[in-house]
């Protein structure tokens, strides 16, 4: 029985997937990176809705930005072939560089946003001595 199982191990799809003998297409990698970015983005979005501590809400926003960065880099590395029509005069290397530049600028914007946002949280804390997202309704009143 064991020998039969071992003999069948070569055709076991899970074993074949993990052993590296399965022919991994580049589209599979693109799919996995995009799925990971989507899951991370959704976890961050749920955190923004659910949590009430503004510092943690900022952390979840950072998580969403990083998920988008991962998506940019995945598309920079693995480019679908029919995008050549869209690219026009640009080469795929140029498109990969554009994706990386987007990531760099997202990082810069995130750094500025964190500096200003945490400054705002500190100002609110000094003004009201409490930080709860649900209680910050000064503009509404």
């Amino acid at each position, binding site marked *: 029985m064991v020998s039969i199982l071992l003999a069948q191990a070569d055709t076991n799809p899970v074993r074949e997937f993990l052993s*590296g003998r399965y022919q991994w297409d580049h589209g599979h990698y693109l799919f996995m*990176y995009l799925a990971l970015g989507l899951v991370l983005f959704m*976890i961050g979005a749920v955190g923004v809705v659910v949590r009430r501590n503004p510092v943690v809400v900022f952390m979840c926003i*950072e998580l969403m930005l*990083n998920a988008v960065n991962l998506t940019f880099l995945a598309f*920079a*590395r693995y480019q679908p072939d029919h995008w050549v029509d869209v690219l026009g005069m640009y080469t795929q290397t140029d498109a*990969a560089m554009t994706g990386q530049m987007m990531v760099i600028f997202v990082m810069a914007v995130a750094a*500025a946003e964190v500096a200003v946002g945490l*400054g705002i949280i500190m100002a609110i804390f000094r003004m009201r001595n409490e930080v709860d997202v649900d209680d910050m309704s000064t503009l509404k009143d």
Partner: protein
Amino acid sequence: MRDTPVYVFLVLALVAVASAVGVVAFKSPVRSALSLVLTFFTLALLYFNLGAQLLGISQIMVYAGAIMVLFLFVVMMLRLSGGDRVAEKTDKRLYVAIPLAIALTAVVLIKFVQPLFYMPVTKVGDDYGRPSEIGPALFTTYVWPFEIASVLLLIGVVGSIMLAKRKF
């Protein structure tokens, strides 16, 4: 270059998702911040896996270094970590947000991401992420966005100092 084995990606993805869940689920903001550091490190390793060396290094320096230190300083100054200053109560939003998020993830995954699975895809060469490739592009083709980003960072510095020094 050969592709890295797929289980490297799977392990990194598992750690990234688990620590991202930790960011949302931990009650203490310090634990959330440390969990977020782990997420950023894992994402930096994934960037290396994608061949973007410079961005992986700057991910570690900018996010896991600078931004997380800023977060931890604010948590320390707000004295939020120990007490129950912000009571996290599990209210009805949780029961709406999580099924909606799962449903939206499933829809986007099936309708938009899944067609890419069998699509013919070209892998760009390994040297697209080197500093020697990024530097010239950053200072020739993308010099105007670069300058605008520097002005934005200057505004961020001035604005945060304004907010910090203001008397309420």
